[in-house]
């Protein structure tokens, strides 16, 4: 009984803000002190869909987040493989070093990156945005993947090697399937973090490349709650699609992993 009520409370707490977002989206008039909107309609949704930047923003957000995820994993996986098995740097120091990027304020990093990227002609390009996002997603992904490598240990790969498997066979048949749950989590988190980036997209993209946060934030700041709510729901939908897609892609059989 107690468990059921706790569950219901949890559901309510999660659903409440979503309901408010939904109400804002379909309201055409919602004035104080009414608890629910006085008038409903599809005006806000229509306005959002007619915005010329809407579909490009959705598509850009999705593509950038997906590409950032791929780049992040390509860097994090080999790096973590080496870091997990080395004995030169203590694992605590390593954790500290991985979190170092968060010590500096993001605005300082973004503005100085911008200067560098201007010289390299990377501003206003997808490559530039993806690289700057990767900087902010790597610590999350590295921490999760490093932990997965530590937990897996080296025994499986060593055994596979001794049994005559080539490195790519080991990756395909042993490391990837065993690490899949960890990699999927890292990928999902990377996708979410990249999707919600505002500052690097704004500075490095220079306004040429629109993403959902670039449209959403000004509306929220200017009190246009109905449009901001509509965009938030779209944002949520894109996040869910991306995370589920990544989970599905990486997936992997999962049977009795070693503790």
């Amino acid at each position, binding site marked *: 009984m107690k468990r059921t009520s706790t569950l219901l409370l949890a559901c309510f707490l999660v659903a409440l803000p979503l309901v408010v977002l939904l109400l804002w989206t379909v309201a055409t008039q919602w004035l104080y002190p009414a608890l629910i909107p006085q008038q409903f309609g599809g005006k806000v949704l229509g306005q959002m869909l007619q915005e010329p930047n809407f579909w490009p923003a959705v598509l850009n957000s999705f593509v950038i987040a997906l590409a950032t995820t791929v780049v992040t994993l390509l860097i994090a996986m080999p790096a973590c493989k080496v870091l997990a098995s080395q*004995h030169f740097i203590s694992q605590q120091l390593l954790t500290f070093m991985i979190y170092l990027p968060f010590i500096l304020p993001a605005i300082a990093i973004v503005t100085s990156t911008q200067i560098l990227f201007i010289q390299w002609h990377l501003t206003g390009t997808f490559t530039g945005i993806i690289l700057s996002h990767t900087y902010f997603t790597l610590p999350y992904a590295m921490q999760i993947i490093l932990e997965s490598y530590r937990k897996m240990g080296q*025994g*499986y790969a*060593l*055994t*596979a*090697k*001794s*049994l*005559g*498997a*080539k490195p790519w*066979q080991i990756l395909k*048949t*042993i490391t990837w*399937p*065993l690490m899949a749950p960890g990699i999927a989590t890292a990928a999902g988190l990377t996708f979410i973090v990249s999707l919600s980036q505002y500052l690097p997209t704004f500075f490095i993209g220079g306004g040429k490349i629109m993403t959902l946060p670039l449209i959403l934030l000004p509306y929220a700041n200017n009190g246009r709650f109905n449009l901001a709510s509509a965009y938030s729901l779209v944002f949520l939908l894109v996040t869910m699609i991306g995370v589920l897609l990544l989970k599905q892609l990486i997936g*992997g*059989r*999962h*049977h*009795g*992993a*070693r503790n």
Partner: protein
Amino acid sequence: MGLEIKDVSLHYGRKQILKHINLEVAAGEILTLFGPSGVGKTTILKLIAGMQPLQTGQLDFQGDFSQKRTILVLQDFWLFPHMTVFENIAFGLKARHVKAAQISQAVDAMLTTLELQGLATHFPDQLSGGQQQRVALARAIILKPTLLLLDEPFASLDSSLRQKMHQLLLKLRQQYHFGVILVTHDRDEAFELSDRLAVLIDGEIQQVGTPQAIYERPQTRQVAAFIGGMNFLTGVVAGQQFQVAAQEITVANPNQLTGPVQLVIPYEAAATLGDTGLTAVVEWLQWQPGGVLAQLRLGQQTLVLTNIQGALQPGDVVHLQFGRDLQVVAN
């Protein structure tokens, strides 16, 4: 035919892990690397298997022997948890792109040999410790290795199961003719399985020989102490004569030591009572399944023996005769 390890040394930074290791293992032989944990036994196996690069020294694979036909089985088995028993055993053949029909035939034969019938579709976490061990062996033996490297293979099994696995390993060796380098710190296991033992302490090979030779003729005090169950009597040696508590007995002194040394007498050394011999006083007796455990006093020193032929009473003065010359080692 076999493998010769020539002058292999290894260090991590300033720390010397292995010092001038020289060893050879012949076809079909079981050589045991015996020593306390953390002395580099596993490292030697990894070097031989090519899992770790050699820094100095050489591995000389002769005849049928090669690194490719050397398989390392790590401690704790490391069965792939996401693969069935069948897939685990088939792994090496699959990596070699053997045809599916051949693989299935070979795996079936292995399942029968190792009494794993009916478990082909099980996952490792559904197996008992003994079954996991047998899958790990099957996965290696199916590749027809000439040399099997076993790192503490039976450490996680209970003692009755360990006995059975020892017998199984000896049977498999007879059937498949592979040589084995076995790493263990378990004395009974080392004595039971080995053709030869190499005692490794502090990264150095202290002594190589048959189990009996090592037990009866340990070269150093360290070796004797690590084997365990040994009395050390302090005395003085000159040539073959050893003096202790105003007595003199003939001993083996292959290293031609002189002056103060230790006489090594295993607890289980067979002793008979005579009119002459090492004179000692029986202090107390305790019954044990393997025979009576007697503590004796010899001057200021005590001696524990479990294999004395003849009736003893506390307080008796006895003259102990050992069937062989006991060995002295440096202090």
